[in-house]
């Protein structure tokens, strides 16, 4: 709960900043002027979400080979009729 005058001013400022961030539905509209300072607008560079995805460090190796990526066996029912293992 906001009680003091100073806190109320801060809440209003934060709310107005949030309102300036484009919503997901609006991002497809060309020429939209809702981008935060320091970010690229549509049509020029990738969307901010794409930029964020590209900041994930690339990991080289065979893990990138789709043929090596398989579902967790425990998660599927492929082994449902496998025999129990005695401890």
């Amino acid at each position, binding site marked *: 709960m906001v009680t003091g005058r100073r806190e109320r001013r801060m809440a209003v400022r934060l709310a107005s900043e949030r309102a300036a961030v484009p919503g997901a539905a609006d991002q497809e509209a060309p020429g939209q002027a809702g981008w935060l300072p320091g970010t690229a607008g549509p049509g020029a560079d990738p969307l901010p979400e794409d930029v964020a995805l590209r900041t994930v460090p690339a*990991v*080289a*190796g*065979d*893990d*990138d*080979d789709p043929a*090596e990526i*398989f*579902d967790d*066996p425990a998660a*599927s029912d*492929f*082994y449902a*009729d*496998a*025999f*129990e*293992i*005695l*401890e």
Partner: protein
Amino acid sequence: MTGPLYSLSRKEGWRRYVEAPARQRPEQLAAGQLKRLGDAAREDYDEARHDWHANFGIMRTPQLGAIHDELELIVSAGRQDPDRVRGAAVIDALPGLGKTTAANTFARGFDRAQMRRHGPLTGEGHERIPVFRVGLTSNTTLRTLNRMICEFYGHPGTSRASAAQLASYALDCVLSCQTRAGIIDDLHFIDPRRKDGLDVSNHLKWLANELPVTFIYAGVGLAGRGLFAEGLTGQSAVLAQTGRRWTRLELPPFEVVSEQGRQHWQGLLKATERQLVLARCRPGMLTGLADYLFERTSGHIGSFITLVTRGCFKAIRTGEETLTAALLDQVRIDEASEQARRQLAAAFAAGRLSASSGTRSRKPKAAAS
């Protein structure tokens, strides 16, 4: 190799076996992660996988489950007072089908239950040893059998005692330690048609009468050796008495003639596959080789485990990190399986056999005239 070495023919080794915690499965790494390991880390990881593949848990196959159920019944019902005769169980099967494993895993569970229920010491303060286990040798005599039992308990007077004294010591050990079950493995070393074999056979009967324990025997082709001889007369009539007291339990190999048999084979392959730690292991890696694996092992679980363990070793050493027919073709196993392979291969090739569940073996096409 890692881990302590011990023998199940000594109480210390048996206790270690009973109380050993389940092994920890090494972490599953993908091929890329494997490449990024340093030399030392890779060596440690591969060693851990070799150990694991040679020792991953015992699979409760339908055969093993049935034997455990029967043993549970026979041992648990064997509560007769010492003045009454109690029955014994005999696991009689071909080599490589898991007789020893069946006896040991059952006795391990029985031992754990007894210790949990009654504690590690008897009321008189003796060490509680719920199970003893001995393995016979090719020249087991009456004296050596008694000595083996005493040596299991670590009795100090085993070296200079006579057969009768050793029998007395064995009785003391069993009574003091409140032993309830005894495993005598490799019973096929006793030949009841020979004089010393008949003596040992008679002595087993004496032990069963005098020791208040339920015996679990295991051996190869015991029925064929006459240990259960029925209808014998004269000097060998004592064997007929043995046949009346022992319950014979069979441990059949896997078969792929029936749909149920094929399902069991698939269950074994899936349970095994799930245990393997190979970087390129895939669901279906072994079930896709169902025919090939049956052809190689004749459905004998001992041969199958040997093939998989050696195959995994080779897959890790060569960097293939998966089991394929080409890789397994480079692995030799027991001679009996190798000899049976040709016949089975012909049957699979002709369509007379299939190890895949949900398929039906087809009749071979008639030769074109």
